[in-house]
């Protein structure tokens, strides 16, 4: 390629950049900056490092406080512990609560609390799952899980996700920032003793989540035409491995459109090995680290059999039939 050709390409890239940035301005953020500067006027803004340390400390303290204050008897549909209610002054009242039956014959409570701090432009949300420590002390509750969500968010209704053949269930916990249209969510699972994270996403632009037959369908806004309508769709298929080593999936077959994504979500200990038989799916990335998943993208119409085998299991594994079709008219 000659230099002249490259210059032409760079001019094209410039146009593409202008197009890409068009409509994305700092204007809407000015108000946020003004609010932050007013709130912190006369005080030093903590550095990000100290800020993170402070945040962690606050969360740890809050969780500890909750543990101390939960020995009252909760109601089934709403939190009625008088001691917790009395916390209103120091720790904000729970803004929303749900009863989760993560295992048959057990009940867990999910509570959302608002957290505020002068350095935060907006309140954050702390979600806590706790359950009655029934066998040993009926009036005591133990913390199973806690997580925080970004600023200015409101809780979305929690949903339980059931996998056929399993007596422990998953739950979807989500919050949304109505102004900036971010979705934050967690998919968590319960093994009868503890809660583990299956999947976590923050700041999903224009995010929408639906649960169909145990499969989560996540839609998010994209800035380019990954799909013709400016949204991408990801099918999140949770899986579990039962004590006998059998792989449990919510469905046996799934229909996707070209350009959509498929992700298997599970726990770190039960990472999957996956094999593809056809050409309809393209493997994207197997992720190492906190989250465990296998990612695929539907690249052409046809059928695909995905063979799934948990790495640390000698069980029979499982398979999922994928039918990929061309996108329908928008």
């Amino acid at each position, binding site marked *: 390629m000659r230099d002249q050709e490259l210059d032409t390409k760079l001019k094209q*890239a410039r146009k*593409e950049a*202008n197009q*890409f940035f068009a409509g994305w301005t*700092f204007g809407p*953020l000015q108000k946020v900056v003004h609010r932050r500067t007013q709130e912190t006027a006369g005080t030093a803004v903590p550095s990000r490092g100290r800020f993170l340390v402070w945040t962690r400390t606050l969360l740890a303290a809050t969780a500890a406080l909750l543990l101390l204050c939960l020995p009252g008897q909760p109601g089934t549909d709403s939190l009625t512990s008088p001691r917790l209610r009395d916390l209103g002054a120091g720790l904000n009242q729970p803004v929303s609560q749900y009863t989760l039956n993560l295992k048959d014959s057990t009940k867990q409570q999910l509570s959302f609390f608002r957290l505020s701090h002068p350095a935060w432009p907006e309140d954050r949300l702390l979600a806590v799952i706790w359950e009655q420590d029934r066998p040993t002390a009926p009036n005591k509750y133990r913390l199973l899980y806690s997580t925080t969500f970004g600023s200015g968010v409101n809780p979305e209704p929690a949903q339980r996700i059931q996998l056929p053949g399993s007596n422990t269930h998953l739950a979807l916990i989500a919050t949304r920032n109505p102004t900036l249209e971010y979705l934050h969510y967690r998919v968590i699972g319960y093994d009868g003793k503890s809660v583990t994270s299956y999947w976590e996403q923050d700041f999903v632009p224009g995010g929408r989540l639906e649960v169909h037959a145990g499969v989560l369908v996540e839609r998010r806004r994209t*800035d380019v035409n990954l799909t013709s309508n400016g949204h991408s769709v990801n099918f999140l298929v949770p899986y579990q491995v039962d004590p006998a080593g059998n792989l449990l999936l919510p469905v046996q077959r799934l229909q996707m459109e070209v350009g959509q994504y498929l992700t298997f979500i599970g726990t770190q200990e039960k990472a999957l090995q996956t094999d593809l038989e056809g050409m309809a799916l393209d493997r994207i990335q197997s992720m190492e680290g906190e*989250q465990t998943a296998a*990612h695929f993208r539907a690249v052409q119409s046809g059928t695909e059999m995905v063979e799934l085998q948990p790495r640390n299991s000698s069980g029979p594994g499982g398979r999922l039939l994928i039918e990929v079709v061309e996108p329908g008219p928008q």
Partner: protein
Amino acid sequence: MEKMVTVQAKARTAEQNEQRSQELEYLMRRFGDQVLRLAYYYLRDRYLAEDVAQEVFCRVYQNLDDFRHESSYFTWIHRITVNLCRDHLRSAAFRRWIPWGDSHTLEGIGGKTERHLEAVEGGEVLQKVMDLPVKYRVVLALHYFHDYSTREIAEITGIKEGTVRVHLSRARQMLKKRLTQGVEENAGPGTRH
């Protein structure tokens, strides 16, 4: 008497705050979009870029009184942006924010990148530019997309002007190579004679 002095001091502080707010307002209107784009070139994530851009102007507000006009507002604000972006790139916290564990694009490792589901830059050539290592894509974008001179880029990024020229040259070479590879890939093996 003491009370009167306190009232006067408070009024003076309020007046100063108002003045600073107006100045901030002007600077945000003047440089807000540039800061946003610069942060994006570094972080390649629009939501993080927005976060950084907010932080930039909070710092501007805090330090307005100390600003000595030894450099222009342009350079000063851009330098704050660059420093904050570099902090982000260095921090472990930032790596956690990258969805799907794809930190390679930020570390400047070449090759095909997989940025599925995350916001991807529109346009084929822009995508190739953004796939360049961060130190190359930033200078290339500032120079060719925003007409910044090599001297301005040097002031903003805090590197020597000669180094900026070297980065520009290497960025061009790298981009050329990648664009050529792209053409060959698209052509496919069957069409080559």
